[in-house]
């Protein structure tokens, strides 16, 4: 049933009948459903009026333009929400943000805020009791089966809470409004609530997209919330109280909210770590960095508690740190939220909160929970079984499939099965009343449409008190009448504007009050994992650059052969095509002579095939994936350049029918994109360990690619006519043609080419230059005191570099092995290649040591394991 709202409040000048009207006048709400903008009276609420009038005046086309801008900004900023399933290349789904925020009036906000804070205090008290004295269980205020039978209860964590007033640092609640206009809590999030970072990014984008309206609206700022979070985490530290090291523990880039982990760690200035970036020694937690082990004082955790310690909790976890709980027990590290706090997410608790609020606080709940019956009690169970067809049934434990049964939708047989399951383990189930959420205007298909909404709100403890974020993450369903607002189901997010009577003074984040002492920038360690990824970003970068330039040269030569049909062109093309296969390691490729005459299919495949190892698309994906994994280390501009490389390549080359012309301009754009990335990293990265790693990877790969090219082209003899064409192609594909001409002003000759591309230390495209730089970088890497002795990687690079420096062109070209190969040259290139591979191996072993695998041992391991 629909009702046309007679919107008397909106006085926008736009004519409702014109195509450009955003549909404010004809906004349709549903009968019996509360709407956030028009309530139940079909009249725009006073605090929405100015905002919606401004939108109406803007017109639908303009709003649509801004909506697209929103999506572009989000994509460029790398805001994603990974969706599980499907292939990994399409893992990252862009975050969706509706240009219409949810508005909350200042008076109502006070009520919500008080309710959220009360719940945080209450849940904190419950947590402290269950991991402490367990009085609630002993006195029967909470049934033992409800708590001890929940998989968020970890007996190993009992007694492990540090003595302090607030245990729960972060709390989040999902709120929805019922038909009567009252707000209800649907569920509590207590172990590692996500969404606050997305809320912040949404706000950042909205202030740009709706800058005009935002300026005119007294919206409360979010920065204070994050400042309180930083302060709260800082006060948790037991050591280094003045300047504790706080890390954000993430499950890694495959987690659906990885963007947020990277975003928050960069915003708050915390090192982003995965489990194997940390180690426990002497009962303390340490960060494995390029400069050795650094103590960690506080962990902001985004890993589920059961996965945090394979020794004390789930032994099959690869995401945690063995011994972490022991470090917690000794008070050497504090984790927020504490291990075990997921027990508060048990939906069965909702049924007991009113009683516990009176027990602990002598108060009624200010924000009620959705009506919940726990089946572990006889009367409630009976009620649930008698009313199955009008209730939602949930297991108290969130399982892998997160099943929720809607009683009304079940057939007879399914109902029987559910009934039997409840009777077999009654304490494992709750029933809840289905709730219809309120609607809120969303800009969908060029007009305002009412969509069901859920607000995720956030509360943080700053060490003294709880503070609610004046705002939050609002999510709406994509489809009309749908109640599933989750990101996994394709929901859209909204910014949430909590209105103030007058604009609050913005809180600057640049100098958090809690950390006024100047932080030594050089002391922020680079994790060995981040070092590893930087190294690989450098390597993929050069792989793309080298392959793209060579491919471009090949295409030019291919055109020549089409146009002039000269034998020397065709022979030169064959050399280049084979070189392309060698350089990109995509055998058999053009080593199969049959492909040489009709190379287009293979060339296109090398450019665009996403699943082909060594193709440009494959290397671009790997480059972006590695860069994304260390998203927190890039500046906004740098990340945007990474995004645009991939985006443009997809548009030009991958997603369209491909022609030689299109590929050529795609390659031009790709190379320009890489140059932009080079400029940004060169300009914005400090010359510390991170840059050393990036540039080392880059130099190493450039040397390898260049040597592969030289071996495949000039290390063997060609007919003079072909040779000069090959030389020219090699020079132009290494961006050295102009330099060659300027310097030698002569015809193409091999000795001069080798002088320039192999031995000239002043030429940034030469092998010698790469080795010299690599040698400097390797010397600068941190290493344990070893006196004047050289390390393994130093010895290797010194040997490679010295051999090259001692070579002369005359010697390199002095003997020819009878098959047309300059053997001294070929040997030098082969030996140097081999040494560089070993350099990469040694660096990986010494500096990226997080890769050592953990094994689980019990004394009852099967006897077959005997050595």
């Amino acid at each position, binding site marked *: 049933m629909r009702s046309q709202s007679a919107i008397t409040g909106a006085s926008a000048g736009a004519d409702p009948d014109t195509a450009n009207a955003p549909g404010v006048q004809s906004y349709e709400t549903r009968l019996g459903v509360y709407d956030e903008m028009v309530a139940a009276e079909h009249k725009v609420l006073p605090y929405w009026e100015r905002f919606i009038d401004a939108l109406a005046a803007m017109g639908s086309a303009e709003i649509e333009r801004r909506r697209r801008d929103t999506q572009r900004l989000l994509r460029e900023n790398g805001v994603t929400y990974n969706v599980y399933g499907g292939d990994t290349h399409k893992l990252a789904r862009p975050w969706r943000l509706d240009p219409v925020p949810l508005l909350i009036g200042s008076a109502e906000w006070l009520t919500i805020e008080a309710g959220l804070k009360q719940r945080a205090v209450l849940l904190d008290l419950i947590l402290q009791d269950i991991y402490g004295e367990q009085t609630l269980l*002993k006195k029967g205020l909470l049934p*033992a089966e409800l708590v001890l039978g929940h998989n968020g209860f970890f*007996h*190993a964590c009992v007694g492990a809470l540090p003595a302090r007033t607030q245990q729960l640092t972060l709390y989040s609640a999902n709120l929805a409004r019922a038909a009567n206009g009252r707000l209800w809590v649907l569920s509590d999030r207590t172990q590692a609530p996500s969404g606050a970072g997305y809320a912040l990014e949404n706000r950042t984008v909205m202030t740009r997209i709706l800058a005009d309206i935002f300026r005119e609206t007294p919206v409360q700022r979010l920065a204070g919330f994050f400042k309180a979070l930083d302060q709260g985490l800082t006060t948790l530290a037991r050591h280094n109280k003045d300047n504790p090291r706080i890390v954000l523990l993430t499950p890694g880039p495959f987690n659906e909210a990885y963007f947020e982990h990277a975003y928050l760690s960069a915003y708050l200035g915390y090192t982003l770590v995965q489990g194997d970036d940390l180690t426990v020694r*002497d009962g303390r937690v340490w960060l494995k960095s390029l400069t050795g082990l650094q103590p960690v004082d506080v962990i902001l955790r985004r890993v589920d508690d059961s996965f945090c310690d394979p020794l004390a909790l789930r032994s099959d976890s690869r995401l945690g740190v063995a011994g972490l709980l022991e470090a917690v027990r000794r008070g050497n590290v504090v984790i927020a939220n504490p291990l075990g706090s997921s027990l508060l997410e048990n939906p069965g608790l909702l049924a007991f909160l009113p009683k516990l609020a009176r027990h602990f606080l002598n108060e009624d709940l200010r924000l009620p929970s959705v009506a919940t019956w726990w089946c572990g009690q006889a009367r409630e169970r009976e009620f649930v079984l008698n009313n199955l067809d009008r209730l939602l049934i949930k297991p108290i434990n969130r399982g892998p499939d997160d099943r929720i049964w809607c009683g009304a939708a079940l057939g007879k047989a399914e109902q029987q099965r559910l009934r039997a399951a409840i009777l077999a383990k009654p304490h494992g189930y709750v029933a809840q009343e289905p709730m219809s959420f309120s609607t809120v205007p969303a800009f969908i298909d060029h007009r305002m449409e009412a969509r069901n909404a859920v607000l995720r709100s956030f509360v943080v403890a700053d060490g003294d008190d709880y503070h609610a974020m004046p705002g939050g993450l609002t999510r709406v369903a994509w489809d009309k009448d749908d109640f599933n607002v989750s990101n996994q189901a394709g929901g859209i997010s909204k910014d949430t504007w909590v209105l103030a009577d007058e604009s609050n003074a913005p809180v600057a984040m640049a100098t958090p009050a809690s950390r006024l002492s100047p932080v030594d920038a050089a002391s922020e360690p680079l994790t060995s994992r981040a070092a590893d990824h930087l190294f690989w970003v450098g390597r993929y970068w050069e792989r793309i650059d080298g392959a793209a330039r060579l491919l471009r040269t090949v295409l030019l030569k291919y055109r020549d052969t089409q146009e002039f049909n000269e034998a020397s062109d065709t022979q030169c093309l064959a050399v280049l095509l084979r070189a392309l296969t060698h350089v990109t390691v995509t055998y058999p490729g053009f080593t199969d002579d049959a492909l040489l005459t009709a190379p287009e299919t293979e060339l296109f495949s090398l450019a665009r095939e996403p699943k082909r190892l060594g193709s440009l698309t494959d290397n671009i994906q790997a480059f972006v994936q590695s860069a994304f994994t260390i998203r927190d280390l890039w500046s906004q501009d740098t990340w945007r350049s990474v995004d645009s490389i991939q985006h443009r390549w997809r548009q030009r080359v991958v997603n369209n029918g491909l022609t030689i012309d299109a590929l050529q301009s795609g390659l031009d754009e790709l190379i320009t994109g890489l140059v932009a990335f080079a400029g940004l990293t060169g300009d914005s990265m400090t010359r510390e360990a991170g840059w050393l790693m990036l540039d080392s990877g880059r130099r190493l790969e450039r040397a390898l690619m260049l040597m592969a090219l030289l071996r495949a082209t000039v290390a063997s003899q060609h007919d003079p006519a072909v040779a000069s064409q090959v030389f020219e192609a090699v020079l132009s594909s290494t961006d050295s043609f102009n330099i060659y001409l300027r310097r030698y002003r002569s015809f193409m000759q091999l000795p001069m080419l080798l002088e320039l591309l192999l031995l000239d230390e002043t030429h940034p495209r030469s092998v010698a230059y790469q080795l010299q730089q690599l040698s400097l970088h390797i010397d600068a890497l941190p290493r344990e005191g070893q006196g004047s002795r050289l390390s393994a990687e130093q010895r290797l690079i010194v040997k490679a570099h010295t051999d090259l420096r001692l070579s002369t062109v005359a010697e390199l070209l002095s003997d020819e092995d009878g098959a047309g190969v300059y053997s001294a040259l070929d040997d030098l290139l082969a030996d140097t290649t081999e040494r560089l591979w070993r350099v990469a191996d040694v660096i990986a072993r010494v500096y990226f040591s997080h890769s*050592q695998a953990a*094994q*689980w041992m*019990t004394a009852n*391991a099967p006897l077959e394991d005997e050595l």
Partner: protein
Amino acid sequence: MKYRITHSTVYNYSQPVGLCQNEARLQPRDFWRQRCESCHFEITPEPMDFREFVDYFGNRVVYFAVQQPHRQLAVTAISEVTLFPASNGDGYPPLSWEQIRDWLQDPAGSAPGLRPSQAHPQDQDVEQALLEARYHLLDSPMIAAGSELADYARPSFQPERPLLDVVRDLMQRIYADFTYDPAFTTIATPLSEVLRHRRGVCQDFAHLAIGCLRSFGLAARYVSGYVETQPPPGEERLIGADASHAWFAVYLPGDGWLEFDPTHNKVPFDRHITLAWGRDFSDVTPLKGIVYGGGQHGLSVSVDVLRLA
């Protein structure tokens, strides 16, 4: 009765281990029929980090970490215990299993004769004991109650049969129906496999009995320890040929936990030495650890239970 127990575990690795962290539940705990006189560890290489604590079930735990590279880890625990010859289950009111099941669900509406305060003078202890018992009604990582287990157990659960008779019968049936076969199971073998093939080791039989009892609403726990073995007549006792052992205990209001050994069809008396107890094996694993590196590994375990007096 006095015993000295020497429990040695040696890991050999094909590659160096850079770091290992371990939890050992190898120290006998004290309770009414057992006192641990002494216990010490010999660990090589010597752990740089070593700390003792008590877990949620009251078991003694040692956390230790070996932080220097090593290719072998040897852990030996040497304990001396005194056992007080005492048995349980005699002279208690013959409460039916249904009475006890109902009492565990709702102690307030307890039947006459169920007055736990006789055994527990302080109310606080009653509450604590009841909470512990109720934890052991629930599924645990390695034991999920269900209809398969209930079907197997049902013949023992005759209506209004005294609980002790039920459990003795269940123990006797497991002893008779199941074949002791160390080649059949590993720690990862699920209970349903054990039930289907009627084979397993002491740990499986204890899990089985516990699962059966929990399927009928009774509280049961897993006990890890050792049993003194007698050499075959005329043969010398072999040092180190003993093994870890496991059995189970069931909760009886007022009396606490009564023990049963389904592997030997015996009620533990003065030859069962207790290390630790919990919901199942995963709570009381005698020695577990995480090693970084190590490659392939080999393991040897020896246990020696020596009667001193």
